């Protein structure tokens, strides 16, 4: 399980498989990678980062579309 933080919302989520990456999470949430910056345990990471057990993943919306 990992913790997903979006704004003020926190939720526990399942890690779907061994190679579950931030980009997979973003695809599930239908979030274009260009519009967000992601942090893993408080540090900025790229979307190619694997999500591990007990990670705290924060998705910060930085760009708003039209």
């Amino acid at each position, binding site marked *: 399980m990992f913790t997903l933080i979006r704004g003020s919302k926190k939720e526990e989520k399942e890690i779907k498989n061994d190679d579950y990456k931030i980009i997979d999470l973003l695809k599930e949430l239908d979030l274009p990678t*260009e519009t967000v910056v992601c942090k893993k345990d408080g*540090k900025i990471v790229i979307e190619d980062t694997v999500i591990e057990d007990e990670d705290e993943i924060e998705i910060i919306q930085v760009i708003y579309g039209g």
Partner: protein
Amino acid sequence: MKTCTQCGSKDVIIERKHSGQRLCKECFIKGVNKKVLKDIRKNELLKKGDKVMVALSGGKDSVMVLDILNTYHERNIIDLCAMTIDEGIANYRQDGVDIAKRHAKRLGIEHKVVKFEDCFGFTLDDIMHNDPKRGACTYCGVFRRWIINREARNMNATKIATGHNLDDETQAVLMNYLEGNIENLTRIGPKTESRNEKFTVKIKPLREIPEREIALYVLAKDLEVHLAGCPYSSTSFRGEIKDFISQLSIKHPTMRYSLLKGFDKMKPSIKRDFTKEFPESKDCIECGEPGSHGLCRACVFKKEIENNITK
């Protein structure tokens, strides 16, 4: 494991799709700083002794401009001040204003907050709640520019710095081209020029930096910013163009760069053939602001809105 292409650090924060470059926080910040300083030099945006007024919304772009220009201020190359506009958009603008105030205080610079309500007698929300003829962005842009020009003179600034970024510039080029507004294209660039001394030169130090890298920069440097989007922005033509460019950039990640480079190559020719030569410009007969014939656009809009509100 993906490592920083500059220093080998494994704490990569960005992978630039158009170049394959991967950078850690330190190398990214250093690289962006270097790029912006180079662009400031290349486009001759600043000279020693300038007093620069940063149009500071508290958003990521203007906070980054303030942060970078502060390095010149700290080295006594320029004087720095900031101005924040409060359009009176409920549940949105106040957060940005508060953040702007905190940054100005932290840097110890002169800061003024100017409200639409004090300048014109109504807020943007008032305009949009009273059967407006035009879109929010149309009114907002004209009124904001009016305030920026006037306040730059009030603050005795020699330059106005805005946070316009690569995304903004490419949207502007495409919007104007698609609408056939070739004369407007002559006005897009890193620095404005005007023969009228009432217009303060505007500079865009972040013009070649993509919007996402600005966001990354402010987050990497832990700068407090107002990230929320304007509630009125979803209704604009610019928003449609933004989505269009974003969509194309997925498969064509160099597109924003090539669009701007191509435009900058063409611009001297467009300027030569399409700049409208106005006869000696007269000030607005209502408010005295420069560059119009009869009433300026802000005064035309103001009358239109006042009519709507009293109806």
